[in-house]
């Protein structure tokens, strides 16, 4: 139930904080999401969404850092299909 999913903000609407909403793209599925908790979110940001509300703006620099660390574990980049196996 605590699952929250990252999606990309396509557009924002609403001036008042509690009524601010965004259209968010989750890998092809677009949903309307409340921005009541993340009023600073802007078009192009990734937000992490739970039960119809954005909970945070995803920090893309931190995300890149983890992936760089992973690559530096001494492994060549993931071979084709490496990620498919576990999907």
């Amino acid at each position: 139930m605590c699952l929250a999913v990252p999606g990309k903000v396509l557009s924002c609407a609403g001036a008042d904080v509690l009524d601010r909403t965004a259209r968010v793209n989750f890998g092809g599925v677009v949903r309307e999401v409340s921005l009541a908790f993340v009023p600073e979110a802007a078009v192009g940001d990734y937000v992490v969404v739970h039960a119809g509300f954005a909970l945070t703006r995803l920090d893309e620099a931190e995300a890149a850092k983890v992936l760089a660390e992973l690559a530096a574990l001494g492994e060549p980049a993931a071979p084709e299909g490496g990620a498919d196996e576990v999907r």
Partner: protein
Amino acid sequence: MRYVDEYRDAVGVAALAREIDRAATRPWTVMEVCGGQTHAIVRFGLDELLPARVTLVHGPGCPVCVTPVELIDRAVALAATPGVTLCSFGDMLRVPGTRGNLLAVRAAGGDVRVVYSPLDAVRLAERHPDRQVAFFAVGFETTAPTTAAAVVQARRRGLGNFALLVAHVLVPPAIEAVLAAPANRVQGFLAAGHVCAVTGYEEYEPLAARHGVPVVVTGFEPVDIRRGMLACVRQLEAGRAAVENEYARVVARTGNPHARAVVGEVFRVVDRRWRGIGTIPRSGLALADGYAAFDAERRFPLATVTADEPAECIAGLVLQGSRKPTECPAFGTRCTPEHPLGAPMVSSEGACAAYHRYRRPQPAGVS
């Protein structure tokens, strides 16, 4: 999907497993608190590639599982009340109470709706002023702000026909309860990333220090979970007991101030019974006085029934990490997702459901 698939990279996951193997020189037991993580662990087999010295046990972080049976009974009674529409997240419908479940009420003609967001319930109340619309508010700190924002909206719109049946629970008191259990063997925790996205992790710092246990804020994808475990094992090996954030792309130290503020306004902290575990002090939320008018338990006469669990169900032990679902004698035989004896077999975050879906029964004691 961006920011999901990269963190499922099989090569990276295997490389991290080797790092954990290298780091662990002694036996350690680590608990993942969150049921969402339990599902990822069982689904991707993340416990199976671990060195035998590192044991991962599943925690109480399944809000559906720990909702006390008397609250299920009240939801059932509410749903059966003429003129009432009961809205709930889908997981709750099959959870057995003492007198059936919500699905049975719906089959008998009750108006039970599955919603994706508490805001859907507010919209329903607005569209149907002739009906009383109640939302069964289940969930941890991740979900509580969404419920709180919904009731604030209902008040601003003057919706006198909207109410909440509140079953929200809090994670840190549950961790305290696990640590206080006499049979406890957990030495470190993976804290639930999306709970911390709301609350931050300052609250865990005194807890980690007081009990001498490392707490690592951890995400939900295979790479995240392996990274959380590696950080936890490294701390244990070094004799450290700090709070570390391995989910910094989503979690900030102080969490989300807007979400915390609305929870603080709408709810107050109360003692709460956890199904299978018992009462944990200051572990639940109830509506604050200013929002009491939206409390379904005040608006409707919902008799309190105190009920016992089926004796066979060992959900309490499963939820506290002292038994694996496969060690339950009813697992997969008398208890299945179609005919559940206990809530952990129903919920998408329940450990019993995860094992039933992804793993064949194994001999007792295999971790």
